[in-house]
């Protein structure tokens, strides 16, 4: 059964259905979108049930010839890593639709367009993680930009078009670098027994170390732009600032994960040697991102920008975990991707509700919300706690795994990174104090608390954040085999305890 293709088709079908719905009936449109995303989520979970945890091979594999002239296939398949990310995406989609019920108003275009874009985007989100053919991946990787571009530019706020353009150009540039590498790979594969884009075949290619390094850079820079790594991050704050909260969630929560996902799936598997060569540099960049992102978050006066910078710090952790080349670091990083999706979603959605109610995203404009809108304040606080990785919440597990995993091989990096944890407390508690605590400042007296829809939307996220904090095993059991497989393929083994041990 072609699970993945079906998964990818469902949103498209939904989009088509919405396209033929009457323009007038916006409510119906929204309901259709919500229904579609819910169906996709259900299907994904149904698929996940059948996933064999300990099988490190790709599962649910599909392969059809697409462009034989170039040896390009429509090839899908998932391992633990992909499954987790697809799950995250498909769970986030309905949440975003429900949470951003009114985001589509006040856009340049109709409500219909908004949801069509969202659904098209969802298809691509699934496809980009499921693709096992490099060309297919690249196609989706690039095509994804377009709906997001229109979502930001069409439905965002403030300098939306400028931000959208910046985002698009930045990403396109990275994509083109990657294209150069892909072309090179294609040619090399042609020279070594037949053109192919099949990951497994590409990973066996013989390359001189210089070639490998160059091609690696092509890929890595593209991914480093996506998963904003210092110093390629400057597009993110602007984009996040202009996009609607829902879009931001998909942007930071899912699209940016494509970057870190790509680092694992493509950089590491295709260019093991180069990965090792560049690890020191990348780790330094990651650590810088962690600290830099955190400090800049502290320095922000705008809530959306603040959240964006916290994400830069978090992506630093993820990248560090990936390149620590230990099973803990790797599993931690993967789990981190999942958790970050939800904690950022929580921050952006609740923050978004606050901002839409207050009509401003300046932190200074809020004050004393805890008295006025207790539930909303609590949700924001909880989201913040998850963002600063409070033990007992899901993000703690992943962050700590990353740190421990890094420490065993790169103690210095881990130690510096740990300071980011303290900074995290600052960048969360400062807005919490300014916005939620203190006396209620003028302009906030009349704010309304979360309504039922919003409560329903945020509930699952919070449930995931808390439950996974105490019981992450279900995910870890899926992630571990994949992670350790990658590590093993790279020829790494976890450092053994330096002195004795059990």
């Amino acid at each position, binding site marked *: 059964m072609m699970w993945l293709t079906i998964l990818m088709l469902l949103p498209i079908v939904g989009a088509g259905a919405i396209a033929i719905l009457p323009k007038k009936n916006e409510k119906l449109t929204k309901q259709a979108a919500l229904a579609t995303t819910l169906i996709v989520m259900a299907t994904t979970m149904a698929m996940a049930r059948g996933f064999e945890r300990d099988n490190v091979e790709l599962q649910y594999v599909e392969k059809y010839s697409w462009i034989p002239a170039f040896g390009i296939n429509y090839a899908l398949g998932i391992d633990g890593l992909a499954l987790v990310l697809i799950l995250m995406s498909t769970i986030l989609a309905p949440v975003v639709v429900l949470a951003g019920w009114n985001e589509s108003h006040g856009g340049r275009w109709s409500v219909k367009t908004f949801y069509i874009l969202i659904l098209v985007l969802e298809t691509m989100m699934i496809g980009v993680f499921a693709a096992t053919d490099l060309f297919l991946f690249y196609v989706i990787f690039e095509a994804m930009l377009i709906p997001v571009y229109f979502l930001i530019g069409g439905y965002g706020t403030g300098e939306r078009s400028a931000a959208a353009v910046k985002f698009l150009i930045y990403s396109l540039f990275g994509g083109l670098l990657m294209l150069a590498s892909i072309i090179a790979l294609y040619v090399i594969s042609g020279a070594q027994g037949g053109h192919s884009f099949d990951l497994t075949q590409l990973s066996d290619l013989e390359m001189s170390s210089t070639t490998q390094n160059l091609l690696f850079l092509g890929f890595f820079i593209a991914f480093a732009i996506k998963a904003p790594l210092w110093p390629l991050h400057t597009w993110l704050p602007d984009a996040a600032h202009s996009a609607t909260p829902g879009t931001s969630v998909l942007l930071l929560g899912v699209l940016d994960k494509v970057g870190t996902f790509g680092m694992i799936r493509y950089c590491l598997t295709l260019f093991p040697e180069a990965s090792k060569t560049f690890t020191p540099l990348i780790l330094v960049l990651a650590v810088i991102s962690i600290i830099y992102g955190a400090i800049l978050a502290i320095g922000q006066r705008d809530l959306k920008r603040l959240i964006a910078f916290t994400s830069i710090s978090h992506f630093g952790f993820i990248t560090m975990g990936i390149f620590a080349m230990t099973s803990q670091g790797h599993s931690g990083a993967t789990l981190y991707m999942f958790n970050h999706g939800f904690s950022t979603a929580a921050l952006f959605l609740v923050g978004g509700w606050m901002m839409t109610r207050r009509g401003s995203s300046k932190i200074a404009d809020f004050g004393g919300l805890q008295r006025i809108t207790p539930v909303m304040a609590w949700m924001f606080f909880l989201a913040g706690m998850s963002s600063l990785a409070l033990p007992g919440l899901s993000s703690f597990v992943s962050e700590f795994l990353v740190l421990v995993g890094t420490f065993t091989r790169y103690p210095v990096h881990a130690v510096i990174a740990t300071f980011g*944890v303290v900074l995290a407390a600052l960048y969360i508690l400062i807005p919490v104090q300014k916005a939620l*605590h203190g006396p209620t400042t003028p302009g906030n007296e009349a704010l309304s608390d979360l309504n039922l829809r919003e409560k329903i939307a945020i509930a699952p996220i919070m449930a995931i954040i808390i439950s996974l904090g105490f019981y992450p095993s279900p995910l870890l059991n899926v992630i571990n085999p994949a992670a350790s497989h990658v590590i093993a393929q790279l020829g790494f083994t976890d450092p053994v305890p330096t002195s004795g041990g059990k």
Partner: protein
Amino acid sequence: MMTSTGLVYLIALPLAGAAILLLAGRRSDKWGHLLATGLSAASFFLGLYQLSLMLGRSSAQRPIGQKLFEWISVGTFKIDAGLLLDQLSICFVLLITGVGTIIHIYSIAYMSHDLDRRRFFAFLNFFIAAMLLLVLGDSYLNLYVGWEGVGLASYLLIGFWNQKPAYATASKKAFIMNRVGDMGLSFAVMIAFATMGTVSFSGIKAAAEQTSTAALTGIGIMLLIAATGKSAQFPLQAWLGDAMAGPTPVSALIHAATMVTAGVYLITRSNFIFDAAPTAQLLVVIVGAITLLFGALIGTAKDDIKKALAASTMSQIGYMILAAGLGPVGYAFAIMHLLTHGFFKAGMFLGAGSVMHGMNDEVNMRKYGALRKFMPITFITFGLGYLAILGVPPFAGFYSKDMIIETAFNAGGIKGIILGSVTLLGAGITAFYMTRVMILTFTGTSRWDEKAHPHESPWLMWLPMAILAVGSVTSGYLLSNGDALAHWLSPLFESHEEHHELLPPIVVSALALTLVAIGVAIAFLKYSRSGVDAVAPSDVSILTTIARQDLMQDRFNEVVFMRPGQVLTSALVKTDEVIIDGAVHGVARSALGVGASLRGLQNGFVRSYAALILIGALALIAAIWVVAQ
């Protein structure tokens, strides 16, 4: 080790309470506080039950554990959500739940007028649960969860009235400084895993002897940092004073009896590490000694009754840390002082709360005076606590504190003499400032505002105070009688060789009492004879001024960390905008510029186009020519 299935309920009950109260929201305003108190009490009785079971077993069999589920497992990094109840943790369980329950009861009355009382009780329950997890966790990572959990609870409770900006700031400060300490804990865990491949107490205990001293010292120091954060020890002590922003029951429970003593627990629990890492141990002692005096000195200058008590807490915990730093000989006494302190300090805080209750929340002792007639019960209970903390026999403090002083002297060599005299001095200063508190508050002439109508608190408030007072009278004797506690705990620690006594116990006690007497005397002369003026005198010695400002601790932090931090932040924000983002835009702009300038070639004159073609032709020929050669 025996396993049990019941341990989890110790935590689950109060946690459930917190969850219910928070989720039910206003609906549970009516009965929320009762439920919370009930659950806390239930947890206490469960603890007693476990104790009875434990007493029924041979000392080797006493520790019991419970594996709930596999929490984190990646590669060799395997952490179970496991609980461990042994002779050490049971003490804490009982202290936490016992004192906790008492304070729950107290709060019912104390918070009765507060609209958010339900939320308050939810937090209290949450704190109890977190604190229990802290002492029951069977690995450093599980402990870590509780560790930050109590941090969160303390943040929430300090900032319970966070509509007051100052209070909100105080809570933030507490959380941040705790986080700094927590870093130490995570480092400790990382080093432990990297060197021994495990982070469970049993695992590390087993692996400790094959482990290099360097690593152990590293772990030890990191644990010490963690302890200083949580227990407000030097150099991370600055938050405790401000933490008094929280409602008084909180100060009593969290910032006197239980949470702040977590550091002592951590060090005692990690005895197998510190015993093998003398350097770390020495540092522990030093930290303890410094804080002991530090707190005491601050205490002498505070007019805010709660801050004075807070300072004294700091100093008393200094005693405990110091004791814990003395190794096997000290652990038991550290714990003993911890327990007794739990009683009398909590009692005194509740007393202070009762006073404030009667003086419509006035905290400035200079605005008190002569309250003993108006609130006799408070006076008596507070007084008993006072005697206890002074270490007047036979009150609790006498046993616990003297033991510590004694062991300090016996630490041997110059070290022993220094530590001994420090502890003695501390005792003296303690006597001075506590007497000062007593005099300013209860005796002398009344210096209240006209609005104040002092009155005794309702029974729901004084009953707990009474119970604690009983504790502060008896607990010392009970615990030390026949070294009860020491024997009880001994299986956990390396048995220590009996070493030389510098001074016989009786001499130590005598010395201690004399110093106490001196302290009391000075206080009397200074405050009782010559009355006290309602406003703090400004013409005071520089020493006093410094002491009033908490020995400049905040100034120091501000100058050394905050200011540079703010500068760095704003600088980086600029850099990001101007340099990094500027570079990006610069590229775009330069492309535009080049385009615009090349555009000039297209001047519209056909002849220049032709010229361009001709030049191109020549260039082409030239190129081909060059290549051909």
